[in-house]
């Protein structure tokens, strides 16, 4: 058991629970619960978005991939980063000007409210649940390794803390948990990268030469082609990662936590800045693991890295900074999981209490106090579902679950959102057909692909050759929406098309006063 890690983690927990208590005093309305009252600044929100997005999978997973396969691990970094510029160019302004709390608000502005909300809720809940399973199982295993705690204790701890943050402190507490986590993570990776470069005499040439000399595959790890050779396979990953980011409900939701559209755009830019900085440092950390760990037998047992490839960055922190830095980074990894799960929980709670209860059941006229109570209750239920799923899936190969949210977000949420914002011809029927087909085909393609068909079900060869089918399923959803919309002659279709121009002007100019005031019930 790592005492430093546990002490630092307990400090983090105490600070964040204190923040949740403070936030609970300020969360008196459903608006405050969903968007922190819309009073977060652009820079703070950028840090919170970065905290929401830079997961343990990014930090530990990508460094682990570079440790094992070198350059090819960077594909995931580039994929995860490149969605942010497009979020700024295409979506930030229009989403902020049209929505209140969730991306479902945006698409239901011009399409038939009840049906499109139901479809968007299914898309949101699917992404949130899949993401949650991957996070919870990852959390349990990671914490087992880092802290020496039993799997179940780890999963229960994560669930209870997230319930405390979200149910009591809502989006305000979640935002500050994410900001603190992002600051700690960026500080930690900066220190590790600095110490690695110090060991390399501040020379990239020495770092890469050392990595090439130490890795069993030699200099090939510095170039593409060790893990992936097929350009189509690389394209499938890049498409799923980029467009997946643009359809993640918990990320889109953060655009409503700032007071103005300009702050929303600033948020997207600062999120990019923090995430870009993080991924650039991962190059140093990833190749640093190769440079400094391969030559050190104390990190290996039976010829394998202790704890597996995902522990490479943690071992590196010990190699360059001793037990203190390792304890700090272990605590940060735990905090990372908490922040991501909290963001997902707020998003799932909003899908049920705001999109379903307030938007569909109450037709936009809910009792605000009942809605707030339902939001809190849903957060508790989601926390418990996460706990159950974490325990249920503990022995499963969940690698495929990590791919599914991005593929589903890219193939369901993004096409509907993009076309409803940018194409006047989009109709409710088209959006529903496209979303449903996108969902079904992406799930089927993943199931018959290598991650499930071969790795889980044990068949010899996959029926579909790629892990990330979004390269095929996303265009299919786009084509379906287009095809069904242009052949839709229903009265509702005419209304959907006519709604576009009013929505277009509002999406660009905001309400008549100019800047959008924070929406309140």
């Amino acid at each position: 058991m790592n005492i430093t890690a546990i002490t630092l983690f307990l400090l983090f927990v105490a600070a964040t629970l204190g923040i949740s208590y403070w936030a609970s005093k300020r969360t008196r309305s459903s608006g405050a619960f969903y968007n922190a009252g819309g009073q977060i600044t652009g820079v703070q929100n950028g840090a919170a978005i970065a905290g929401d997005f830079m997961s343990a999978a990014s930090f530990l997973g990508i460094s682990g991939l570079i440790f094992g396969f070198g350059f090819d691990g960077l594909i995931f970094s580039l994929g995860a980063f490149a969605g942010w510029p497009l979020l700024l160019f295409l979506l930030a302004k229009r989403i902020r000007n049209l929505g209140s709390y969730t991306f479902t608000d945006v698409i239901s502005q011009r399409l038939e409210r009840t049906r499109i909300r139901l479809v968007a809720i299914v898309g949101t809940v699917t992404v949130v649940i899949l993401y949650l399973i991957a996070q919870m199982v990852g959390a349990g295993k990671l914490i087992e390794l880092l802290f020496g705690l039993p799997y179940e204790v780890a999963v229960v701890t994560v669930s209870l803390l997230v319930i405390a943050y979200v149910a009591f402190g809502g989006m305000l507490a979640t935002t500050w948990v994410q900001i603190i986590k992002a600051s700690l993570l960026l500080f930690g990776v900066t220190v590790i990268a600095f110490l690695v470069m110090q060991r390399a005499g501040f020379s990239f040439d020495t770092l890469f030469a050392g990595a090439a000399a130490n890795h069993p595959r030699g200099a090939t790890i510095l170039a593409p082609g060790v893990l992936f050779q097929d350009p189509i396979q690389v394209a499938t990953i890049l498409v799923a990662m980029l467009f997946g980011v643009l359809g993640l409900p918990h990320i889109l939701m953060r655009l409503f936590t700032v007071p103005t559209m300009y702050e929303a755009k600033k948020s997207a830019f600062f999120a990019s800045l923090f995430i870009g900085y993080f991924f650039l440092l991962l190059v140093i950390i990833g190749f640093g693991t190769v440079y400094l760990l391969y030559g050190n037998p104390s990190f290996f047992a039976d010829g394998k890295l202790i704890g597996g490839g995902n522990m490479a960055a943690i071992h590196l922190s010990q190699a360059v900074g001793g037990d203190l830095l390792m304890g700090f980074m272990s605590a940060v990894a735990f905090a990372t999981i908490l922040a991501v799960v909290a963001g997902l929980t707020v998003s799932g709670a909003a899908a049920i209490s705001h999109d379903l209860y307030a938007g569909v059941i109450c037709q936009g006229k809910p009792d605000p106090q009942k809605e707030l109570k339902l939001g809190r209750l849903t957060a508790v239920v989601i926390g418990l579902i996460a706990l159950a799923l974490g325990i249920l899936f503990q022995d499963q190969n969940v690698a495929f679950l990590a791919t599914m949210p991005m593929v589903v977000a890219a193939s369901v949420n993004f096409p509907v959102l993009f076309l409803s914002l940018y194409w006047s011809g989009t109709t409710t029927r088209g959006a529903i057909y496209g979303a449903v087909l996108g969902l079904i085909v992406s799930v089927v393609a993943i199931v018959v692909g290598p991650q499930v068909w071969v790795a889980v079900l044990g068949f010899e060869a996959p029926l579909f050759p790629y892990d990330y089918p979004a390269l095929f399923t996303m265009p299919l959803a786009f084509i379906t929406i287009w095809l069904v919309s242009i052949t839709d002659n229903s009265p509702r279709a005419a209304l959907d098309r006519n709604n576009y121009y009013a929505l277009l002007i509002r999406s660009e100019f905001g309400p008549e006063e100019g800047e959008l005031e924070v929406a309140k019930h």
Partner: protein
Amino acid sequence: MEEETQKLTAIHKKVRQRFRYSAITLLLYASFVICYTDAGRALSRPLGNSQINGALLLFTGLILLFLALEYLFLKRDKNPANPRRPL
């Protein structure tokens, strides 16, 4: 009516600008796949006597370019209520 037409013209201009930035981003992004084709083999070779190769430079350059594009976009997309405000 005239005001509406003016607004629509301004919106179309902005949309063209957004699509230009997005197209540049997507083209640059797609260029990464070249590293995995025969045409991009040269990117795998070390530059001069260094261990750094074109693929590593491309990765770093793309992240920095995307950030620069975002900064440029924000600078150009000024607040209509306050055109001097940079962000």
